[in-house]
């Protein structure tokens, strides 16, 4: 999986354009897309316990402006997949997966929304048990179910 991105990472010319347009980088000096790329080039395992890896908001401004088309968010996706497989994943994401596996949706229909829907005469938005079974079968093939048990 990581060999796919190794090549892309190597073409970065360290121009800093990605940092310049990044709103998160402006709020937190510890977060630098360029630095994450360079750390990954040296040793991707150094990123496993690096909290700043989880600070990107996926706005795609950096990749849109990068002169070398490095596509940082897509690289980060692969890095985060790797880190997740090595056991480090924010609790919020585990919860998200647990919800999707249980309800078919990222959130649960709460009582307030249900009442509001009834008042507006909107149809029931909940996926059927049959649909949820299909989703579970997809999640099971990928091995992601381990996060649900943890979460």
């Amino acid at each position, binding site marked *: 999986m990581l060999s796919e991105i190794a090549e892309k990472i190597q073409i970065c010319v360290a121009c800093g354009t990605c940092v310049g347009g990044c709103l998160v980088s402006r709020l937190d000096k510890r977060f630098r897309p360029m630095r994450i790329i360079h750390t990954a080039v040296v040793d991707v395992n150094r990123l496993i316990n690096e909290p700043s890896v989880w600070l990107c908001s996926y706005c795609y401004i950096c*990749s849109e402006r990068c002169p070398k088309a490095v596509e940082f968010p897509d690289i980060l996706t692969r890095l*985060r997949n790797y880190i997740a497989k090595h056991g480090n994943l*924010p609790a919020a994401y585990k919860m*998200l997966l647990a919800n999707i596996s249980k309800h078919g949706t990222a959130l649960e*229909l709460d009582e307030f929304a249900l009442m509001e829907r009834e008042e507006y005469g*909107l149809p029931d938005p909940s996926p059927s048990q049959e649909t949820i079974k299909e989703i579970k079968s997809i999640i099971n093939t990928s091995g992601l179910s381990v996060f649900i048990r943890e979460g």
Partner: protein
Amino acid sequence: MKYALFLGCMIPLRLPNLEYATRNVLAEFGVELVDMREATCCPDPIGIRNMDYLTWLAIAARNLAVADEMGLDILTLCNGCYETLKTAYVTLTEDAEMREKINEILAKANREFKGKAKVKHLLEVFYHDIGLQKIREMVKRPLEGLKVAAHYGCHILRPSEILKFDDPENPRKLDELVEALGATPQQYEMKTLCCGAGLRNVMSEYSIRMAREKLVRVKEAGADCMVVACPFCFIQYDMGQFEIRRLTKERFDIPVFYFSELLGYAIGLSPRELGLGMHRVKVDRVLKKIR
């Protein structure tokens, strides 16, 4: 015009008022919507994709397969759903090997991605399928004198080589839609800034500060209100103003509209038919300005 309505999670489960307004407005334009009863979470373009790219793609492909079976193009009301579903559509249409891999996973759920159903965002339907001319004709209550700051959101614009909705640095389609309603599109600094929703669950303080960055600029420019095209952006800027107040003591008082609401008001629907009472930052002051 007929679409498979892909609701996603945030709108039906947290902001049904936006769904109600959108259904009512589209009915006025004679657009027929068929609910996707077998759809699930798109899934969200950050959380699930960050855990496992293939699972993310497979669940998205399953949703596309549901629309394939319905024989209809998909209409999404959310930038997140749009990015996920369109990225999946483009990836699986262009990459035969990946398509085979995903269809193997889908086979276990008795589904197949065929690539027939296209993915359209609500703004695309208004801008391209319905068109500015038709919208202008439908306006009964022009929003004259109203200065509206358009916020497009990230995942309708970028990655632009996949989404191809508008110019990623200098978008104009939502501004043109605002203009078609008789309002004045208010320009402001750094229009393409992210709302910060992507960090809401992992680093809420940054998420709030990101929303603030844009509100500061919208306020400075003198806009009466903002218009968005995504439920996540909506929450960031509407409820977000109260979160900012707690964090920095600043008060913005900028009403935020989802595009269907503003359009609905301009074509003569009542605040009730648009569920406008549900906003955290009250919209009455802005509506009075129009009358």
